């Protein structure tokens, strides 16, 4: 009984969020990607029940929404870590050793690019060019740029990350 009540509360909130986002774009199907980007901004990732609501509200098959969600690399179907770590592996950063930095990070924290550490401390992404080639190699932590990164300094930065409880808790399913 109690479980059912909780579920219905979640569902209402759920629909409010989806309604708000869909209305922002006048329900235009062409704006599907911006809508999904907004859901990801609000939730930190794309929770399956939200995508279901979106599919119902827009009257498009869920498969079409999934096609979009899995095609574009910026969409996430699983919750992210408390911090967002982005390593640039664009040509210049790569020439200046970003490949090695990525290897070291993956080995040290036992993750793959795109993955999240088991303790949800951070999500690690290797992206193609953040447009800061002049100060390569570049790493971003929660939007802050670090220039001229080396394998050692990258690890130092990552070990200095605080386990930010609040950010992690804000996410659904956390």
């Amino acid at each position: 009984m109690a479980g059912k009540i909780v579920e219905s509360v979640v569902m209402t909130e759920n629909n409010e969020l989806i309604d708000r986002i869909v209305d922002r774009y006048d329900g235009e199907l062409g704006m599907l990607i911006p809508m999904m980007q907004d859901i990801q901004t609000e939730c930190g990732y794309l929770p399956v029940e939200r995508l279901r609501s979106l599919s119902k509200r827009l009257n498009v098959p869920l498969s079409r929404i999934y096609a979009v969600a899995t095609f574009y690399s910026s969409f996430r179907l699983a919750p992210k870590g408390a911090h967002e770590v982005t390593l640039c592996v664009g040509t210049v950063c790569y020439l200046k050793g970003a490949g090695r930095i990525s290897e070291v990070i993956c080995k040290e924290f036992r993750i793959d690019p795109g993955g999240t550490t088991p303790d949800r401390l951070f999500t690690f992404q290797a992206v193609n060019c953040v447009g800061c080639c002049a100060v390569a190699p570049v790493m971003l932590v929660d939007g802050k740029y670090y220039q001229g990164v080396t394998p050692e300094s990258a690890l130092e930065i990552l070990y200095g990350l605080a386990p930010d409880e609040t950010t992690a808790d804000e996410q659904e399913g956390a």
Partner: protein
Amino acid sequence: MTVVGNLRLNGVEDLERMREELLACRSPSSKCVRVCMGPGCAAKGAARLYEVFCEAAEQAGGEVEIQAKSVGCHGLCECGPIVIIEPGEIFYQRVEEPDVPEIFRETVLGGRVVERLLYENPDTGEKALTAEEIPFYKVQKRIALAHNGVIDPASIEDYVAEGGYTALAKVLTSMAPEEVLGEVERAGLRGRGGGGFATARKWRSCRQAKGSPKYVICNGDEGDPGAFMDRAIMEGDPHAIIEGMIIGAYAIGSRQGYIYVRNEYPLSVERLRGAIEQARELGLLGRHILGSSLSFDIRINRGGGAFVCGESTALMASLEGRPGEPRAKYIHTVESGLNGKPTNLNNVETWANVPAIINRGGEWFASIGTEKSKGTKVFCLVGKVKYTGLVEVPMGITLRRIVEEIGGGVRDDKRFKAIQTGGPSGGCIPSQYLDTLVDFDELTKLGSMMGSGGMIVMDEDTCMVHVAKYFTNFLQKESCGKCTPCREGLAQMLHILQRITKGEGEEGDVEVLEGLAELLEGTALCALGKTAANPVISTIRYFRDEYDAHIQERRCPAKECRGLFRYEIDPEACKACGICLKNCPSDAITGQKKVPHVINQEKCTLCGACWEKCPFTAVLKV
């Protein structure tokens, strides 16, 4: 210094009055500190500098008007953060927070120069007072970047005061759409996104195409790694793009525009969004622009992190809310593009050139450049050069002048090996072609291309097979998978390249690569696939010996491919400090105090830890 507030401009006279009022407000004694907020400078802490300058300006108060301004990328990212002081245009480089009080006291208030923050020419030892005196800027000619580093990109007033939207006013009052097309045609403007298609021809086809509504799109999905020209314009001078698009819309007959911005550029989105808001408030976007019959508005869409969306049909699919898969272009997008309607798509830099062409005339623009490539082109000069950054040069300049005069040559006195132009679809040009002119057709002849403007300098330590593998890996990952040649062909090419760089190459591999490349070029669906083999083909064409060394001798001449060279310790240089010994994960290094250390090759896993850690560069790659 908002003068007009939310006043709507109902005619060209209103715009003129606004400009006059803005200029009248500028007292000749007023001073301004311009802090560069380009990505390079921002990564070096420019935001904090700006804050400190703002505080200092506020505290100073008093009789003189002092303004701190955050501006877009100035270009010389290598020497950032860059701060420029008006009057005098004094150019300070590598400014740090502790320098701020001194700059403020000495230069801003006292009018004296802080010598130690000036740029010093490493060859002559001469100090440069202004940007024009620095070799990096001397060869450049700025049209698309004219306002970058000068105006505050978040202020439409700044843009208008500098003559912004005069081109739009001119078009609306004195030019018919056909005349606008004529002017762009005379200018000989070609698409800056890579293809180099004649802009006027595209506009005219779209204008003449049947169907409505018609759309104009600005392609800001700058995905080439090693390129940030469009980002710099979007973040440094967003109104130039908007003005260009309005003029294009007028010529084509469109009421709706889109700007598609790459997901990795959040600041570009913010700047453009702000600029669109301001333009709407003043009546420069929306219904009856400047009181005329033209109505046009712009919407911003963010990309989803897919490289292929820089391709026009894929971008349009993305705007329709679908996965960004390109389609065959039997029917051009100018006839059937977004939502099946006539659509004209141009790159950021192309749009940003339009206002200057209208203002100064097509003939003026065409007087710059070569016979078939007119005007200027913005490049990102990066890689192993001394001065990296954003440069705008007249077409027809030689690659050598860009590398040597602007970039200051290869850094660390290494030997120049190649310059890579055109991003992942481009090719590597070796030193014997450095005197080639920068021109759409000349670069294509060399097996590379102009592309959107990435220019990556490689030195003797760069393995060309490795570079080819890097780009093939990139493209293979970014291939959308719709057509077989690209999906399967690139995977096969990557597989072969991986084998070669691991020392497992076989006779005939190069020929197979060439065969696959030919197949891709002839049969892939879109430009991504058709040009995907360029990095491989150009490196085979100019650096065949490196492929052969990998395959036949199991040797990497540049000593970059792990496993194809050894690490050894130079006994002369070794100081027996023990650092390598402590850092070796496989205990392969032996040695004692005062005895040069030795690497046991059988135990060595070639991880490179000793090479990275040695403070005396005594560990050598052989």
